[in-house]
Structures are given as structure tokens and as C-alpha cells.
């Protein structure tokens, strides 16, 4: 080894130490996340890989999918009124700071779908990989899971799909209906636990519908 080499090594070591020490000062929170690959996110949205349907979510809950975390981004009052089983309540601001493990699958929902979709982008921008939202929000849960309807004159395929949806619905205490509004299981308000009370899901459906979602 020549006499100059150790000197060059020392200079390189000093340069590395200086840049490393400056990094300690410069490296604010999330510095590696400052860039968001908007092209990749746009492709995910176009590929419809950004959301799940309410029935898919219901099946995940029923099957006890590992690492499933359902986040309700509505207000605490709305959350207390009615929420999807096993959901937790976090505001969008809290969501940006929430600790999310890499093995967790996060499903976001709001009243309609806009806030949850915005939450999806916030989490994806944070680098969280497995995030989905309910496209039509709680409304979709209430209509597709809690009160699925089999229209008059349905085909055999429709009927088969309805049967599995109805089974899922009953698991969550819902009221599937066949044809012009008659409940398959009898009277809806009687079958739904707490349906007559203002906090029940039937009442929640009515409220959501009134808002014109």
C-alpha cells in the first residue's frame, strides 16, 4: 500500500463522517417519503386495485382475515351512532400519524366514499402498501351487506349471488329482501337487533339515503 492511500482513506472517512453527521441534522421525519410516485398511484386507481366492495369486506371480517384493520374516518359521534363491526374510529389527521404494521391490511370507509378515498391516498403516500376503501362508503355496507335486495324477475345467477349475500347478511344481523321489499326473514324492524331504536342499522340506512348519497 502506498503512502498516499491512507491519506486518501482518511479524507474519504472525514467526508463520509461529515455527510453522515449533517444527515443527522437534516433528516426530518419522513424525508425518505417526500416523493410520491403519483404515476404508480394513478395506475392503481385505474386498475381498480384501490378499493374493496362491501361484500368482500364483510367476508374478510367473517373469515377473520389476519391483520385486517377497518378504519372509520367519520366523526366520533357518527361512529358511536353506527359503525361496521370491528372498525376503529380515526380522523384523517390521526390516520396520517397512526402506527401501521407492514403486515396489516387497512380498509377505510366514510359516509359516502370521498373522505375514505382521500385517506387511501394519504396512507399510500406514507408508504403503506395494503390499503383499500369502500367506494360507496357506509351506504354500500348498509345496502349491500345489511339489506341486500333480490329484484323481481331475477335470473338464476342473480339468485345464487343473492343467496350467498343473504347468508353473509344474516351473519351480521342484516335483513335480506326478495322482490318488492318483503323481507325474506319476515319483518325487517323486528329482525334487526335494535332496529327500532335510532342507533339501528335500518335507521342508519334511512339517514344515509336521505342525504342523497
Amino acid at each position, binding site marked *: 500500500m502506498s503512502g498516499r492511500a491512507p491519506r486518501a*482513506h482518511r479524507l474519504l*472517512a472525514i467526508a*463520509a*463522517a461529515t*455527510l*453522515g*453527521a449533517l*444527515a*443527522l*441534522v*437534516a*433528516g*426530518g*421525519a*419522513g*424525508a*425518505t*417519503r*417526500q*416523493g*410520491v*410516485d403519483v*404515476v*404508480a398511484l394513478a395506475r392503481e386507481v385505474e386498475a381498480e386495485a384501490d378499493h374493496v366492495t362491501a361484500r368482500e369486506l364483510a367476508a374478510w371480517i367473517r373469515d377473520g382475515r389476519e391483520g385486517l384493520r377497518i378504519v372509520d374516518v367519520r366523526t366520533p359521534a357518527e361512529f358511536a351512532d353506527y359503525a361496521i363491526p370491528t372498525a376503529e374510529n380515526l380522523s384523517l389527521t390521526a390516520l396520517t400519524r397512526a*402506527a401501521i*404494521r*407492514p*403486515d396489516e391490511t387497512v380498509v377505510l370507509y366514510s359516509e359516502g366514499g370521498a373522505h375514505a378515498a382521500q385517506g387511501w391516498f394519504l396512507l399510500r403516500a406514507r*408508504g403503506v*402498501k*395494503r390499503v383499500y376503501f369502500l367506494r360507496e362508503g357506509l351506504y354500500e355496507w348498509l345496502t349491500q351487506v345489511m339489506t341486500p335486495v333480490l329484484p323481481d324477475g331475477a335470473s338464476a345467477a342473480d339468485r345464487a349471488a343473492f343467496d350467498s349475500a343473504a347468508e353473509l347478511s344474516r351473519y351480521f344481523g342484516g335483513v335480506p329482501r326478495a322482490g318488492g321489499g318483503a323481507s325474506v326473514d319476515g319483518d325487517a324492524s323486528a329482525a334487526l337487533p335494535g332496529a327500532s331504536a335510532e342507533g339501528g342499522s335500518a335507521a342508519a340506512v334511512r339517514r344515509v339515503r336521505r342525504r342523497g348519497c
Partner: protein
Amino acid sequence: MTLPFLASDAGAAGLGVALAVGVAFGWGLERAGLGNARRLAGQFFGTDFTVLKVLFSAIVTAMLGVFWLAQMGILDPARVYVPETWLLPQAVGGALFGVGMVAGGLCPGTSCVAAAAGRRDGLAVMGGMLAGILLFAAAFPLIDQLYEATPAGTLTFPDLLRVPPGTVVAAVVAMALGAFAGVEAFERRAALRPGGAS
């Protein structure tokens, strides 16, 4: 392929860049002496620390480059691919890889470098590597459960330790400089011993 400096649809130009970077990487490995199987095996027996010095230098150089280019807004770190972690299959694969590396004295990259430099052991290791790939593909139906086991997603130290990236950068630089100083001191002592390393 990670091409954080190029447009997402770089295509053939991206492959050209990859080839140029690959050739430069191979040239660097050969210049550092890592095309030599004895030198690589020496790392595992504690008689030659070239591998540690070269690879730790490369890690620190790349890390400081990525960090500071990102800080200056030149490089978008979100476009740097972070491989996902599967703990169990990667531990098993890592152990197998280590055994092969000590036995053959070369890793996949350095075997190509050794072969390109005209060393026949490099060709032998490349042959073994290709045979291993075929064996893996043929045996995949038997081991696909292990392959998919214990997924942990993409893990990075700043996320795991909940510290700013700059803190991790500083810590890795300190580790590297400490390791270099320690290894050099060890080598000087070994050289002074009668019959010690040259």
C-alpha cells in the same frame, strides 16, 4: 428494475442504463479483487477483510448519495424499489446462500466477474447457479408454501425504529467507520505476528 432517475416508461434506454451500471459494477468488483475466490473465502475465515471494506464502502457511498440527492430534490426515493421481507424463506435462503458462498468462494455477482476475467472457477460457480435456478423452478410446487411464509412487507429502518432517515444514515456511517478502524487495527496486529498475514 429500479430507474429512479428515468421516466417510468424508459424501456430500451432503461435497459441500456442497466447494462452500463452492471458493467461498471463488475469492473469495480474486479478492481477491488472480489473476482478472486480465495479473497472472498478469506472473509469467512477472518484472514482477509476486503469484502467487508468494499461492500460497506459501497453501502455508505450509495446511502449518502441517495439521502442527499433526495434532500436536494434530485432523486425521488419513493421510486427506489425496496424488496419485501419474508422472514422464514429469506433466512433459509440466506443460510443456503452462505454455505454456497464459502464452498465456492464466489457469490452470483462475483462469479460472473471471475468468469469474465477468465477464471474457470467463476464459470463453474455460474454453472452451479444456473443449475440451482432450474432445480428451484422444478421443485417450486414442493416449496411454494415456504416461499410465501411469514410475509412482513417492505421494511426500512426509519419505519421500524420510528426515527428520521437521517438518524439511520448517521448511525450506519458511524458503524462503517468504526468497522473500518477496527478491521485495520486487527490487520496491523495480524501482520506483526510471526507468520501473520502479509
